[in-house]
């Protein structure tokens, strides 16, 4: 009679794991709400919670209506939406390719979106909606190019990462080239397209991104469980009832769309897509879908990074600089860890 207690124990352990995951996700969510509220209250002028709430519910407060409603609220919304989109997209790629380095900002897809956006703004002079579509086209083309270049009598994650790095280097050069041609551009504007910034936040920018996140986010999140199963390998996943090709296609298209929308609105915010997934896994645990925690961590990273960049130093840093400085040591740490365990390839 040893099996029954073991099964029971396993069940108890599993229940505890699920509960712990639930509490940690709830804690992340609470932290995000708190940070969101803080970002609405804090600034050059400090507004109390009552004033912020009145503005949120449509009341007219002298001063606060403009500062909170037109400046801080779109900025905070942009941060949360872009961060969540980066987190979901990054975690999708990392999980599907089973390699933390295979995040879309390292393998060039984010830079495809950024290059297309910069070209369509500087060279073609398009508006925000068209820029978002161009970014989507750029990201899709880059993803396709990296995939085709990396596919050669089979598929290897390491080769994909290396080729992606080469593609990223080219596209970064294109961005830098176009920006250097546009001499009338000031530094902050150029900055947005080099590292990501929320300084241009406006409702006009939030619109397309909100549409993408609200329409596609739930779809990708719903496939999160299948994504977790895909980690076991294609054959195992198929045996467990996952329609592998369809699920993979939907996941890739969804992730690339989210990424392109976020990049078109906030620029290629450095390393958020790369960091969100691994951090979320460490916080919440490896079981279950990695996507929802990654979305929360991504939103926290962008929102927190923007707050830090705006107020923690004597000069104002764009969010991409803060997340870049945070992400650099993390990237090296992950790299050292994965080479030590031989898990790189």
């Amino acid at each position, binding site marked *: 009679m040893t099996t029954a207690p073991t099964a029971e124990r396993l069940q108890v352990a599993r229940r505890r794991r699920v509960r712990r995951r639930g509490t940690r996700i709830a804690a992340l969510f609470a932290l995000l709400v708190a940070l969101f509220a803080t970002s609405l209250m804090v600034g050059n002028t400090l507004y109390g919670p009552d004033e912020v709430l009145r503005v949120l519910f449509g009341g007219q407060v002298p001063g606060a209506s403009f500062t909170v409603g037109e400046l801080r609220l779109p900025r905070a919304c942009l941060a949360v939406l872009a961060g969540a989109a980066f987190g979901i997209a990054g975690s999708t790629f990392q999980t599907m390719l089973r390699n933390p380095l295979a995040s879309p900002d390292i393998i060039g897809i984010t830079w495809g979106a950024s290059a297309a956006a910069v070209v369509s703004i500087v060279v073609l002079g398009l508006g925000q909606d068209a820029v978002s579509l161009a970014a989507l086209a750029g990201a899709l083309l880059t993803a396709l190019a990296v995939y085709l270049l990396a596919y050669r009598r089979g598929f290897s994650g390491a080769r994909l990462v*290396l080729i992606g790095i080469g593609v990223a280097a*080219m596209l970064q*050069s294109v961005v830098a080239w176009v920006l250097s041609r546009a001499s009338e551009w000031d530094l902050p504007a150029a900055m947005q397209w080099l590292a990501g910034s929320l300084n241009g936040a406006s409702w006009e920018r939030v619109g397309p991104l909100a549409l993408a996140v609200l329409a596609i986010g739930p779809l990708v999140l719903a496939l999160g469980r299948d994504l977790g199963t895909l980690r076991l390998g294609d054959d195992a996943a198929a045996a467990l009832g996952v329609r592998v090709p369809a699920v993979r296609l939907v996941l890739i298209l969804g992730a690339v769309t989210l990424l392109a929308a976020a990049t078109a609105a906030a620029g290629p915010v450095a390393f958020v897509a790369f960091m969100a997934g691994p951090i979320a896994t460490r916080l919440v645990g490896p079981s279950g879908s990695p996507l929802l925690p990654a979305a929360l961590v991504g939103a926290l990273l962008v929102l927190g990074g923007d707050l830090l960049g705006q107020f923690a130093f004597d000069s104002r840093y764009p969010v991409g600089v803060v997340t870049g400085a945070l992400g650099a040591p993390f990237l090296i740490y992950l*790299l050292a860890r994965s080479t*030590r365990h031989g898990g790189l*390839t």
Partner: protein
Amino acid sequence: MTPSAPATTAPGAASLRRPAGVRLAWLLAGVVALLLATVASLAFGTRPVTIEEVLAALAGDTSSIGTAAVASRVPRTLLALLVGAALALSGTALQAVTRNPLADPGILGLSTGASLAVVTGIAFFGLSDPVATVVVAVLGSAAAGVFVYAIGSLGPGGASPLKLALAGAATTAALGSLVSAVLLPRVEVMTTFRFWQIGGVGGATWDRILLVAPALALGALVVLATARGMNSLALGDDVAAGLGERVARTRLVAAAGAFVLCGAATAIAGPIGFVGLVVPHLCRLLVGTDHRWLLPATAIVGAGLLVAADVVGRLVARPEEVEVGIITALIGAPVFIALARRRKVREL
């Protein structure tokens, strides 16, 4: 020979042996191309000049506007020549030392390491002395190189080419974002030192060239002097040791030369990628794998390539200029991709 041996040491190496006449012919062709690129660099620019004006200016006449324009292009051209040769030599040495076909001062993080060291010095420690800047840059590139090698050799299998390339690329990305973090809030530093992010030779002056020239010469001599040792390294560590080569010392000396070359080049021109990757591969096709021929050839071709890239950068966006670092990335990244594609994963 290990299965991870790069193309330089593959059995195909024998077929890359070129007769001395062929090598000499290619070397001469390289010199001619270099001269053509140099003349083009002097002749093309915002203001078009005639060939007579170029010749007159080189003879020391700066009286007319045309010849003065040519004279003002001389330092820039010279700098491109020096930096191109230095990066190509550095890349060749790194490929020999790490036995990695994907090695390049840019990809292995050396350029960005030098960049970060100098930018940090300027921003936080009031670094302004030009000589100290070069020293800091060399130390920065050496630190980055050692760091990347340490990371890449963790774990089973030691420093395989794949792990080194990945470690280098990741470190480059990480250090690059730190450079941005230091530079971007400092608008005054940013505008004068934009080339710390994207390498360019536009800011060349005679003073700065004279400053780095000794360091570049020293690095080039060290690298050229280890040519024979590099040939032994290419046979694999065991065979090289059996032939009496002190493997560790040769590696160390050649790598030190590469660090000095890359650090000094970066100190004056900023991080310029992919020259050190593309040129050695091209030259191996032309003059074979003997480093006594390969190293001079890479210096010549590297100098010519960077000057040509600079000319292209000045012509495509007239009257604006495109930094040469952008052009080399656009040329070099496809070569990098092709190399990463060509090798089977196991060999990578």
